[in-house]
């Protein structure tokens, strides 16, 4: 085996072996590409995995397209949803989409939801405002204020 390797190093091995080894990298990538397309044809997409997220998670991850998609599908942004562990800290939390935007400081997504014509409901608005004030998120507060929320109301607890 060692002798064979030395022979190869000395250039006495069959040239086709070197050619084959040179082609190996591109062939592996080509094979992988072929497998991707073959699997896709059978409905499996390992390279294009779709991990379902709820609206609050989409907001926290700044997945604007998923936010628009879910709002268009009728998902209520006021309803608290479970945000899985690792997205907004080590543990899982239960938040509305508005609170998730404040918690993740997603200013652009908050504006996106407002631009889509949604406003925090009366039951969730105080929680959103107080969370923003606790986080001293002045930019978020000014956006919420422009959207018509009372950002000066006292927060308790």
């Amino acid at each position, binding site marked *: 085996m060692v002798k064979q390797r030395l022979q*190869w190093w000395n250039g006495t091995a069959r040239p086709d072996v070197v050619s084959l*080894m040179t082609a190996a990298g591109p062939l592996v*990538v080509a094979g992988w590409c072929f497998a991707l397309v073959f699997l896709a044809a059978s409905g499996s997409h390992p390279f*294009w995995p779709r991990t379902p997220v709820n609206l609050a998670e989409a907001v926290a991850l700044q997945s*604007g397209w998923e936010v628009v*998609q879910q709002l268009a599908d009728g998902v209520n942004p006021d309803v608290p949803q479970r945000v899985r562990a690792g997205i907004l800290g080590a543990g899982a939390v239960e938040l509305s989409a508005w609170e998730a935007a404040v918690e993740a400081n997603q200013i*652009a997504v908050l504006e996106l939801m407002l631009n889509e014509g949604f406003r925090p409901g009366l039951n969730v608005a105080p929680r959103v405002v107080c969370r923003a004030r606790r986080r001293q998120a002045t930019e978020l507060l000014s956006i919420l204020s422009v959207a018509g929320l009372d950002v000066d109301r006292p927060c308790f607890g």
Partner: protein
Amino acid sequence: MHARCGTQSQLTMGPDAPDQRRPLMWINRWHLATLVTMLSLSAGVSYCLVQKPLTLHDGLDPIVKAQQTDSVRELFWDQLHTRAYFRPFRVVQSKLLYDSFSHDLFGAFVGFHVLLTVASVLLLVTLLSPRSGAGFAAATVGGVTFFGLHTSNVLFLEAYPINHFLEIVCLLILTLIATARWRGWFADGTAVLAVLVALGTLESGILVWFALGVAWVLGWRGVSRSGLVTSTALVFAYFGLRLYLDVGTPGLDERSSGFGFQFLDPSVLIDRFEANPWPFYTYNVATSWLSVLFAEPRAGVWALSERLVHGIVPPWMWVNLATSTITSAMVVWFSIRRFGHWIHGRFEDADRFVVIFWAMLAANGTLSYAYTKDVILSPAGILYACAVFAVVREALGCVRTRSGIVAGALAGLCLIVSIGWSVRTVGLLHALRYQAYRQANDWAFIHEVLQDSEVEADPNTRNLVLRLRGVMIRKDVPSPYFVENRTLSPWLDTYR
């Protein structure tokens, strides 16, 4: 020292030497094997293209223009009177697709992108025409070089909605095939038509004519003298028309450009270089050349050097630098070996690939004087892939006929280059995934676009934009948060 690796018979009609007498669709088992490999690669890229949304920024404008214009003719005349750029065929192509497939615009534009991707691969394999095991190996390395090169990435990452840079690449290879592999009226007609379409599509279209001229001088004369003269006449007509229409050239105020460690806005460029723009132009030309050869700088920005000075360099930057540098060193090695033959006007196919690459690098870099970015260099990039094919094949020939440390070193370099470019090709596929997410998000955050005067003023345009947005946000794209692989991702240039 300057002799070829191989016997004299291999020199005159080597295993991959062209046979001008063969018919148009001549093929052999190595050619077929290369074709299957490359089509698999293009299938992987096409799969990602079909899954991802169209590009919003730069991509929406041609669609809106197509919608707002009544006829192709009107749009063509309108495009003749734009400032700095002369690209009458560019938006017209979008208009033709828009009018033909208005019920499924996404399908039309993505379908065309896939068509161009597959065509580029078919054309590349036809041009390289491998006819031996070594040729096959070299062609596959050339293929992954094409897909993995940073100048090619944007050819697949962006749909504007038609990627005209990819179109120019296809026309460039087609013209070279016409003069290298074909002959007669068909070769002439193909070359003239390719030059015409390229000139009317992008400024870099002139490089198609340039490549034809260089190839012809080097002895690829499938296109006749009259074909070459007609193409040259088209170029004169092109410049005459530009002068007549007072199109001008891009100025410093045209767009941001990389300089040093950062991108500079047009206002800053004007402040710094308005009095004397030549240092800036020289910088753009020089960095364009370096970028193709070393993958650094990128679009005029010395990103790796900056990271080296200020922080940690991500592994993918080292992969890019090492792969490009080793490959370029092999091209230089080949050029030095063969320079004596070139001086005496003796060229084989491999020589032509390499000489045309050097000429194209010089021309393409010079053409980037006003501003530089990766994709502008894609014509030099595709010929770099052709040069890689020639050089790797030569190196494999040396391994076969030589012994000792030289053969071992060349074999090792071939393997390193092959693995490096394969990794960079995987990087392209990952980049397509990231880009899909980014582009889907662009379509979500569209409110600024909707406030644009052209869109806001016309309800039909607004409806069109919202209809497109509805399609784009329904594309299921993977979130980087869930697909990020902490071990693999740092090694891949995802073009973020």
